[in-house]
């Protein structure tokens, strides 16, 4: 599995706390550095066969066809891309004109993750998105027209509103396109974002938790009745279209992350590249990987497993935890949560119910091992 981080955006969305830069002059040297890092890290994974490549960001759709081609050439130089590999690119609607879509397809991208967020122009503006609702609709239509059969739409909820009409309209619009995959994220006020500042200065009043929770419930109801499977807290897919790349993160699979702020995992340690474009490029040019390595303790392994797996449709495998880490779920706590309708479990597996998923953080931390 290979992840590439493209840390550039035309402008900053008010809610975003990911690593990106709006200074696009560095795009070319960054692509160079990405290619160099691929070469430097070619032995990180214990395989040379890639079943998934994922371009995340930032805004990977800002890359030109030539730049993408350069990256693909480098990947092919050191790795073999499996025939059935999932090759995803995150894209903003305003970048996906017909010509661009054709280029992406020709280069080998076979899955698009489109950052629509909402079809409501007011919210798009409030959040400082670059596109309009009309552009979003056009781009999804073009995506289908070009023949991208496998694409995902990102939706956002939790915008303040008097009622749920807008949200229901957004869901209906997405369902009308029938994408293979839908990711939905609740608007979160992250520290050090413009939105955080607006909330503090009372320029923006976020929706209440209760309101957002109702939207989540509406979403689950609407999507699951249309054959979408709710396979992770924020992710829905038609059968056989679960995101392979993301599923790998949740199944403790190994992955190599290339680029500033990208994370890698080799089965024992995690590492994170520095989240600074200049410093990243500088180090890579000197042949160094500017990464911090983190070795997880057994307790941290357990906690991470619970945190990630309780969010998924696969749940936590009790036997695996017992055999590998001698961890046992507290029966008392399980029974209490089951009684509150938040969890279901048997001797093999522990899951969250739909209701429980709304409280995933609290519930999983209750099962954490803290020394």
């Amino acid at each position, binding site marked *: 599995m290979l992840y590439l981080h493209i840390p550039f955006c035309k402008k900053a969305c008010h809610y975003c706390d990911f690593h990106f830069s709006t200074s696009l002059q560095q795009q070319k040297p960054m692509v160079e550095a990405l290619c160099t890092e691929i070469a430097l890290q070619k032995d990180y994974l214990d395989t040379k066969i890639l079943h998934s490549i994922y371009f995340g960001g930032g805004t990977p759709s800002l890359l030109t066809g030539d730049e993408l081609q350069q990256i693909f050439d480098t990947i092919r130089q050191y790795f073999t891309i499996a025939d059935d590999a999932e090759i995803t690119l995150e894209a903003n609607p305003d970048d996906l004109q017909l010509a661009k879509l054709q280029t992406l397809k020709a280069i080998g991208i076979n899955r698009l993750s489109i950052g629509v967020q909402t079809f409501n122009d007011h919210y798009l503006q409030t959040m400082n998105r670059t596109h309009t609702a009309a552009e979003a609709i056009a781009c999804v239509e073009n995506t289908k027209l070009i023949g991208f059969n496998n694409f995902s739409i990102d939706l956002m909820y939790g915008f303040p509103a008097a009622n749920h009409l807008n949200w229901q309209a957004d869901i209906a619009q997405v369902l009308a396109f029938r994408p293979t995959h839908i990711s939905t994220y609740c608007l979160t006020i992250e520290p050090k974002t413009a939105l955080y500042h607006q909330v503090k200065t009372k320029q923006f009043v976020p929706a209440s938790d209760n309101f957002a929770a109702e939207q989540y419930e509406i979403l689950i109801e609407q999507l699951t009745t249309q054959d979408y499977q709710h396979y992770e807290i924020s992710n829905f897919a038609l059968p056989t279209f679960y995101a392979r790349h993301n599923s790998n993160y949740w199944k403790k699979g190994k992955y190599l992350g290339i680029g500033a702020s990208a994370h890698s995992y080799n089965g024992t340690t995690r590492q994170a590249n520095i989240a600074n474009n200049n410093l990243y490029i500088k180090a890579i040019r000197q042949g160094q990987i500017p990464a911090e390595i983190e070795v997880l303790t057994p307790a941290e392994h357990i906690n991470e497993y619970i945190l990630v797996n309780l969010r998924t449709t696969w749940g936590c495998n009790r036997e695996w935890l017992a055999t590998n880490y001698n961890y046992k779920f507290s029966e008392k706590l399980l029974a209490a949560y089951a009684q509150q309708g938040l969890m279901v479990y048997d001797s093999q597996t522990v899951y969250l119910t739909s209701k429980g998923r*709304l409280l995933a953080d609290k519930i999983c931390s209750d099962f954490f091992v803290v020394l």
Partner: protein
Amino acid sequence: MKDLRNFCIIAHIDHGKSTLADRLLEFTNTVSSREMQAQLLDDMDLERERGITIKSHAIQMTYLYQGNKYTLNLIDTPGHVDFSYEVSRSIAACEGALLLVDAAQGIEAQTISNMYLALGNDLTIIPVLNKVDLPSAMIEEVSDQIVDLLGCKREDIIHASGKTGLGIENILNAVIERIAPPKGDIAAPLQALIFDSVFNSYRGIEVYFKVLNGTIRKNDKVKFMATNINYQADEIGILKLKQEEVQQLSAGNVGYLISGIKNAKEVKVGDTITHSERPCAAAIQGFEDVKPMVFAGLYPVDTSEFEEMRASLEKLQLNDASLVWEPETSAALGFGFRCGFLGMLHMEIVQERLEREFNMTVITTVPSVQFHAFLTNGTKVIVNAPSEMPEPNALSHTEEPFIKAQIITKAEYIGGIISLCMDKRGLIKNQSYLTTDRVELVFDLPLSEVVFDFFDKLKSISRGYASLDYELIGFRETDMVKLDIMLNGEKVDALSAIVHRDKAYPWGKKLCEKLKELLPQQQFEIAIQAAIGAKIVARENVRALRKDVTAKCYGGDISRKRKLLEKQKKGKKRMRQVGSVEVPQEAFMAVLKLDS
């Protein structure tokens, strides 16, 4: 004996007693300036920080006056109302007292009560007007106050400044000229007054005493009359900056005794030391066993630290005999201790010493005074804790301790103070003008109302100018009820309080509101109720936590989120479980801060 003078300093907190004492020690070369550390007599860190003297101390100085060498024993006294018994004992060991009055602030309530104590013990009073160098000093006005109070002449008042050293020589000369040397019969049977004790981890308890009659020699067999325990006087000596061992001490002298005593409980301030053989006829008058006035539960935040806390309290008790405690259990807090304190300051000090000296973090439950409950069958029950309060249907009536409170204030604050005292169920007994703008108010007040935030409120109403002194005047019939707090129907014993029926409703309401702020949302709704018996008097709800979930959990999000949740969980380890509700430690302290 004619070259000996024993004296103390009577002063209100902040009036500069410790600084003045330092100047006296410097002037008599008792300490070199190298050894000089600000406020030398206050050697506990806590004392120095709070600027108050908690335990009293004594120190000996020598002073050359008109060709004669004099020995002066300065006996330091605590300045807070919680420790008034200790003050009374140090006064009893002296023949004279410096009445120290801050020229900028004037006479305060405690100064007056301690002065009457001194006059009652036939002490010669030397009035000293301190801080005369301050721009805000009101020398004429405060001198008038002193003259009025003491009936002395204006010329008798010594002007001084602990800061600049002004008047120090005059004070020392006055001590020799005006204070009588101690009387006493060297040949009579030994009679010595214990006025203080300190704990030394290597040498055991050091007992500070003044010999009134007779002579004590090293290795004498002595007896403490109140406890009736015999000891050998392993070491006796005088108290200079460091202790100085001597072979004998006779009537009039002040010194220390070491005899391997390990437990401070055996040494009671006010007790009389005599010889085991040839004892004196009677003990020195005025001995009282110090009784705790305020009771509260102290619990370790970490339940596993119970035994450690017991050990810490035992050590504290070695040098603080006024601290009493016994183990108690709380359903909410686990194992802890019911402690008795002299007052609220004493309670705070014990709590702080546990934290600083023993590294214990403690939860304190609602402080309470001792009540008497009378059952319908006539039985009297002593109630030191809410859990000991009988059920309402078995209760005939209750009694609570009352104090006589003497408050001295500037006239402009009278209105505020009277309404504060009324709000605290006080009865005004007297109001008299000491000068044109200083008023003395006397109230009968229920002690239970005073132990809470009375002193803080008094200070804030009077902008720090009012001062308070009080004495217990006995029990009176009252109407106290036990107010319980319930979380989802489960009583939280640690939040129960005994309050007056008239105050139960506002108390319950405020506490419920405060708890609503402090209880974290949980996945179910939490009902917070205040109840007297079965009757609910107040209710608040904490809404159920509806949503607590991270939106994105890919690659780097995983580590970040795990760390965040682990950190939150560590914080939660300090929470207590009441039924299904998690209660943070601050909630148990909420009662102490209902108005903030």
